[in-house]
């Protein structure tokens, strides 16, 4: 047990003195926010359409999005690497390598999260809410904005989960970016370099150091998620109370 405690202390002490840590953290956050943002831009329309419709294509879309949640990240990485133009055995040119390829790969992984959870959030709205809005004359993008405003808790949850998956991701990111130190390592993939490259005491301490930072980021996301869900619970309770009081009034 003393070994574990010493290593955690060692890793913690390393954090202020690691010259690369700052750059790696910025790279990780850039990967997370850019990929989630792009996935949100692409996924918002499919999520809405799948959410409000019950046609056969919509059901298939939901099935595919749900299945995509479990797609092996290394498989996505290999496929994209082979399709993307501009890569050579040694990364020397072209558009799609390094950070841009990593962001694209993570976007592909984040897209099912946004679509599946976003659609589920809209489907989970109280029965008839969308129909009621439609009856009041809302249509097209007004109806979409209404649906997303009502389902905002679910959408925010999806965004947080997508950010978390980007922070934790190593498979696709390592294949697409090459995991080269000082240019394409993220906090999580640097752990692999520390364990396998340096190894021994120094490598393990470095791995623990990065693990602490990654856990810190995940903790921030977890707190945000808890706050959002509590907020949702309060709102739901408020809506319920309003329904009860209005039904009493009609009686």
């Amino acid at each position, binding site marked *: 047990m003393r070994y574990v405690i010493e290593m955690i202390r060692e890793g913690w002490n390393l954090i202020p003195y690691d010259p690369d840590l700052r750059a790696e953290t910025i790279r990780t956050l850039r990967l997370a926010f850019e990929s989630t943002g792009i996935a949100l831009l692409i996924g918002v329309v499919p999520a809405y359409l799948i959410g409000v419709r019950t046609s056969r294509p919509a059901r298939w879309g939901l099935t595919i999005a749900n299945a995509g949640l479990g797609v092996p990240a290394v498989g996505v*990485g290999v496929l994209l690497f082979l399709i993307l133009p501009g890569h050579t055995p*040694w990364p020397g040119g072209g558009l799609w390598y390094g950070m841009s390829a990593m962001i694209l790969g993570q976007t592909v992984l984040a897209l099912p*999260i946004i679509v599946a959870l976003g659609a589920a959030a809209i489907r989970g709205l109280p029965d008839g809410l969308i129909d009621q809005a439609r009856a009041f004359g809302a249509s097209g993008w007004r109806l979409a904005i209404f649906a997303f405003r009502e389902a905002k808790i679910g959408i925010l949850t999806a965004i947080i989960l997508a950010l978390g998956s980007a922070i934790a991701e190593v498979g696709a990111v390592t294949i697409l970016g090459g995991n080269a130190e000082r240019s394409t390592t993220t906090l999580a993939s640097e752990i692999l370099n520390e364990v396998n490259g340096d190894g021994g005491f120094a490598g393990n301490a470095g791995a623990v150091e990065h693990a602490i930072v990654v856990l810190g980021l995940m903790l921030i996301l977890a707190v945000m998620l808890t706050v959002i869900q509590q907020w949702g619970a309060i709102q739901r309770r408020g809506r319920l109370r309003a329904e009860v009081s209005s039904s009493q009034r009609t009686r």
Partner: protein
Amino acid sequence: MIASVLMGSPDLLNGLRQALHLIEIGDPAVVYTTKRTLLTAVEATGIATVIGPPVGCALGVGRFPGRGALLAIGNSLTRVPPVVIGVLVLLLVTPVSPFGGGPLAAFNWYQTPDSIVFAQTLLAIPVLIALTASAVQRVPVDLLDQARAFGAPGWKLGLLAVREARTAVIAAIIVALGLTIATVGAIIASGAQQFVNVPPPACHRYCEAAVTLAVGTLFNFRTSSGGVNGQDTEPIAIAYAVILIGMFLVLAAALTFLQQRRASWIAGGES
């Protein structure tokens, strides 16, 4: 358009052709790695299935103080990154150091198949707990209350709840299988991908055969590695990836079949 991009990519076509050839002739590295993957996934999921669903069931339908807090902890444990689990395993099983060995050093798991199973089990347990808990919570409350009123003891109540929610519990086990097959972070961060020394060739870091298909894909397909001993190892990485995606498709089909439109690979995502 997508089809034309796929068809027009010479790397993809060549890679796939070579990879399919390797699978067809039954390359020893491919056979070994596939076997290891299935073995690891089944062992890890099996152990996790013994631990996860009972705990999840207790948290889902039990009535004891602190249940809500424990459930919240179980849900957030599903989001611990695999690499962090890997580092934890590494610290636990390290045999020697200036400060003595890790707490589990006595098992001699360091850089063995057992440490991989250990890491993947730790990965799968929270997922099984969270998914089982949310599954038994969807069982009608009236049914459980009735059983309670008839004086059923706690474990029988749990058994009833699991039997009612069996489809979702089986789906949870499939999700755990998928995770243990596809996740690389925990294995590589635990330093355990180095144990393989199967024929061709005895390998350490950049090797053809690997402990699981996903790890093999990663290590044989690195932009910076350039192959083993000057040999191009990309075809075998693509072969691994093809088998991996095949396994994923089988699991995804099973999951879709089990839970029409309710399939969820992410725990805690449906609230």
